[in-house]
């Protein structure tokens, strides 16, 4: 009996060991120390993010899970942080120390002879990757990190390649309930030096959008996206669009990108401002300009400046930053944000403070 127990335990341990040996572990640690200067005070918040990514890849399928553990310390009300991770986490407690756990994404992807199936909590995206994408499902913007990973949604996605550079994508997501499910489809292709696509997406009851996007080269890089929003009765419609150009100078050391964003339903005066991110748009006003300028001094040091400008009240965020690579996978970033607006302006010092400094230390494991 004892011998049988030992054999069973040994087998279980060996199986477990083999199973874990086939799973790839990666991730990182990131610490943001965030200082805000308001009219009368200086507030501080620290966010320690632990990221753990599990991946298992075989010839036909892949398992992926991205988990985040956050430890927050500080005295800044979440509403005062312009869409930082604290607000994304929905933390409302005024206690100085908070914890949160987030399963950002977890999915299984299977490559069948008739296409690729992905199921789980997945990041579904149509259109041009990056800021001001009308087809983006999650239009929150973290002004301290524009490329921060976004939460997935519960969905089943199907991708079929029509050629090396074209294909169709279809998804369905029940997170809004059976009658309020989201679903969408797109066709993407490539002509000359342009990628492009057609999109239809239904986010829920009375929330639909359809449109197209392009990205390519005309001596300079260009991109354009247009989405037509409409309800189930084809009324209450409005247009949303983004157009941008990008180029580099000094043999690629200086990169510049400028994007114009238009939301037909956006406010044209400060009296009509709504809270951020309502009705599937990015911000509150009708017109915005975004500029991103990056200078790479060398492999270890780079400087970046981005500017958000509300073209209705001309308030904005000016954010220069410096990133230094300490070693393989170890970086230090200093980000300074200056809020230009006052009073009822969207980017107002009265809401977000006069300026802020973020000190970010990041280690990729």
């Amino acid at each position, binding site marked *: 009996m004892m011998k049988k127990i030992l054999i069973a335990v040994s087998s279980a341990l060996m199986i477990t060991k083999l199973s874990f040996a086939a799973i790839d572990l990666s991730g990182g640690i990131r610490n943001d120390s965030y200082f805000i200067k308001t009219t009368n005070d200086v507030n501080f918040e620290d966010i320690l993010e632990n990221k753990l990514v599990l991946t298992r890849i075989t010839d036909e399928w892949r398992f992926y899970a991205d988990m985040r553990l956050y430890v927050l310390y500080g005295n800044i009300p979440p509403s005062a942080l312009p869409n930082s991770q604290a607000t994304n986490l929905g933390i409302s407690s005024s206690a100085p120390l908070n914890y949160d756990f987030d399963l950002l994404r977890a999915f299984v992807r299977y490559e069948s002879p008739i296409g690729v199936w992905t199921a789980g909590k997945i990041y579904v995206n149509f259109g041009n*990757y990056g800021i001001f994408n009308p087809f983006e499902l999650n239009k929150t913007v973290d002004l301290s990190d524009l*490329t921060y990973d976004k939460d997935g949604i519960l969905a089943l996605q199907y991708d079929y390649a029509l050629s*090396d550079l074209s294909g169709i994508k279809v998804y369905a997501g029940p997170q809004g309930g059976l009658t309020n499910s989201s679903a969408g489809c797109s066709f993407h292709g490539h002509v000359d030096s342009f990628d492009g696509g057609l999109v239809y997406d239904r986010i829920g009851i009375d929330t639909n959008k359809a449109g197209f996007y392009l990205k390519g*080269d005309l001596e300079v*890089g260009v991109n354009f996206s247009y989405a037509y929003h409409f309800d189930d009765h084809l009324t209450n419609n409005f247009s949303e669009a983004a157009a941008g150009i990008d180029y580099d100078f000094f043999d690629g050391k200086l*990169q510049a990108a400028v994007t114009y964003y238009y939301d037909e339903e956006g406010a044209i005066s400060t009296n009509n401002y709504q809270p951020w991110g309502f009705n599937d748009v990015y911000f509150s006003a009708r017109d915005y300009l975004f500029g991103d300028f990056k200078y790479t001094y060398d492999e270890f040091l780079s400087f970046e400046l981005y500017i958000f400008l509300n073209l209705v009240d001309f308030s904005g965020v000016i954010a220069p930053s410096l990133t230094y690579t300490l070693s*393989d996978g170890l970086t230090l970033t200093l980000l300074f944000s200056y809020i230009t607006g006052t009073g009822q302006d969207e980017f107002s010092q009265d809401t977000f403070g006069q300026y802020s400094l973020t000190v970010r230390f990041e280690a990729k494991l």
Partner: protein
Amino acid sequence: MLKLLSALILIPAFSFSITAEEIVKSVDRNMVFDSEKGSAVMVISREGKKLTKTFTLLAKKRGEGNESFAEFTNPEDKGTKYLKIDNELWIYLPDADDILKISGHMLRQGMMGSDISYEDMMRNEDLASRYSAVISGETNLDGAKCYDVILTAKVEDVTYYRERILVDEDRMIELERDLYAKSGRLLKIFSQKGIQSFNGRYYPTIITVRDMKREDSLTTVELQNLEFDIPIEQGVFSRQNLKK
């Protein structure tokens, strides 16, 4: 006396038994491939600091152009993949699980911050069709006798207007390549070492690049497990393969 002087002047013009075009074609036979597979370790050095990147590489000739696929395997960039088809580049970002098309002008940038641009790294073009060549002399490099050949672009679509290559006379492989802008400014120096034979093809396994616009900057790429002219399955150079 006049006849002797004339002979002395004329002798250098006839001292090479090979023409510049023949040299360049011999170099192309070694350096240009139908397909390539391998892995690489890239070390970026600057002022005593180092960054190390590792990646696997697949490349294939496609008509007049080329296709290449690279996947980074070092921990910080693991899962990042690049697909280059002719002059277009796509990047797969594993954290975003999304594909980003890179504008053409960014191909001049250093790959992952190195001195090697995306264009340099994934280059597989024959020199003979793009450059006219002149032998400017002979020199000795690391104990090897080399032809000193000057290449000048004869088509518009080239990255470097002028190149100077030092070609090993025995193995007909470049040991050094100096790259110049149209203004005559020296941009980069590629040194190619660790020359090995792959079924009769000589190919470098260690490439160092110095960006002459920077001080004390060096990138070294060590190529490993190289295979040439092997069959590559359909669908490798595709957007779908970026997400696999």
